[in-house]
């Protein structure tokens, strides 16, 4: 009798607390999903009808029906490319330095802690830094390149941290194998460490870019313009970006502009989703290739 109750799969005494815990986590999960779903539903409800080819290929306008996001999505695209070009070499370079060259002294330790902290600094702070440094001191004005530098600063800590993780995951016996064949330290980095950590680095880069593409505050802080009816001609051109355009439309009183904003959000979410999916896809693909 005693054994039969003890061995029963569901017995209230042992499984009671378990069940309560399960219900609690399920509830919080449902709550999160429900909120997200409601948000998405209301955005789709407002914006879906505004989505059209025209919406993507027209410049902003006073007339909500005529307004499109051409200048802002092109601006976002250029911004991402420039941000990547600036942040990736710097971030990966710093990661290689930390993992492969830096001595374990207090200064480098301090730097590491510092970078970890920077990853958590609110993005508006980066915007203010960008405003002072790039816009004012370097007098790049409210240009694409100033925006890209600002966003690059913002994602640099994330790229450094994720790249370091990827580099650390390269097995040391691979590096020993190369060194034993007479490879120099820089050759090991070029021919073993970078190729083997590439998928990890790429995943980190894509994820941080997908964060940067949605950033509004730093761009507003550096004073990116909201109404731009032309495409940027050079990296010194003024620009606008999707989140700024959305922010601008939402702050207008007319309801039709709010619908435009919702449509813009759908585009932005789709891009973010696409980037995240490609990061996952790439990681899986390389994992499979490497584990062979």
């Amino acid at each position: 009798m005693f054994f039969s109750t003890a061995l029963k799969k569901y017995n209230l005494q042992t499984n009671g607390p378990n069940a309560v815990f399960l219900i609690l986590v399920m509830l919080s999960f449902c709550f999160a999903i429900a909120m997200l779903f409601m948000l998405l539903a209301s955005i789709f409800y407002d914006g879906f009808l505004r989505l059209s080819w025209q919406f993507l290929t027209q410049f902003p306008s006073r007339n909500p029906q005529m307004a499109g996001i051409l200048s802002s999505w092109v601006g976002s695209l250029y911004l991402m490319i420039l941000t990547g070009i600036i942040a990736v070499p710097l971030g990966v370079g710093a990661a290689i330095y930390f993992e492969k060259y830096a001595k374990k002294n207090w200064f480098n330790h301090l730097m590491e802690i510092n970078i970890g902290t920077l990853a958590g600094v609110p993005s508006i702070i980066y915007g203010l830094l960008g405003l002072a440094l790039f816009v004012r001191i370097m007098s790049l004005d409210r240009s694409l390149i100033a925006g890209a530098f600002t966003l690059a600063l913002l994602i640099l800590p994330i790229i450094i941290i994720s790249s370091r993780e990827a580099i650390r995951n390269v097995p040391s016996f691979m590096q020993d194998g190369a060194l034993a064949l007479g490879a120099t330290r820089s050759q090991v980095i070029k021919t073993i460490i970078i190729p083997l950590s590439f998928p990890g680095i790429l995943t980190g880069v894509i994820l941080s870019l997908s964060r940067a593409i949605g950033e509004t505050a730093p761009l507003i802080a550096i004073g990116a313009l909201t109404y731009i009816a032309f495409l940027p001609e050079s990296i010194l051109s003024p620009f606008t970006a999707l989140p700024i355009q959305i922010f601008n439309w939402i702050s207008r009183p007319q309801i039709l502009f709010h619908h435009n904003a919702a449509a813009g959000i759908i585009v932005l979410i789709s891009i973010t989703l696409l980037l995240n999916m490609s990061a996952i896809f790439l990681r899986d693909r390389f994992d499979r290739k490497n584990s062979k």
Partner: protein
Amino acid sequence: MIVKIVNKGHYTLWRLRRSHMNALRCVHALTILGNKNRYYMEKHIFEIKNLNIYYHDFQAVKNVSVAIPSYVITAIIGPSGCGKSSFLRSMNRMNDLIPNAKLTGEILFHGVNIYDPLISEVNLRRRVGMVFQKPNPFPFSIFANVAYGLKIQNIKDKAMIAERVEESLKRAFLWDEVKDRLKKPALELSGGQQQRLCIARALAVYPDTLLLDEPCSSLDPLATAKIEELLQKLKKEVNIIIVTHNLQQAKRISEYVGFFNSGELVDFGPTKEIFERSAQSMVGRYIQGIFG
């Protein structure tokens, strides 16, 4: 100067004629190693004098002095943790890579102290190859694995690389098994094949010494037999120093045996003599399984 190396008579003679590249390498080697007169006359490939290796305060190798004869197989045996791997790694300066490892004493390779500040450890490792306990092919193709050592020497001649890959795979008894799938990932090979690939990879840069650290410990008897056969053939071309836990293996393949115990080289001599030591001696007791 080149003629002098040719006088050495062994495998070198044959490979010098193959292309001037090799000749250049040998000249290069001479300039690194200096001491031309001893280069082709000596009976000993390594002369080790008062070698001590420390990790932090722990002394792993204690005052070892020994001369290792050329063109034979020398086996290093001894109980686990007695410093065999440390000793082996010191001979191509792979121990330099371990933080906190410290070394005193001299290791003469072709009569030149390899710990002389003027010696480049990278060039040394191109002359003294190493095969590790766990097969560690790079996650590249079979071809790229063998070609790696040439690539890092900036050899660009495709035909020469292909020729050298084929030759090295043949020397490592692997060619017949992989000739149809050179472009396939090396990690698809079996453990024994992977280990022979690692040997081929080391041979491709024409080392004159091969250090093997328990190369068969993760292989089955058949794969082990294949590698033993291979080493028997290779010893005519390269000097071989092998660490092994398998006493039968040491007895089968080696001409000389060194016996380590807690960091000291207790005994060194021709294999036959060592295996006939009386049960009173430490080696005798180790060989009969009384300790270790």
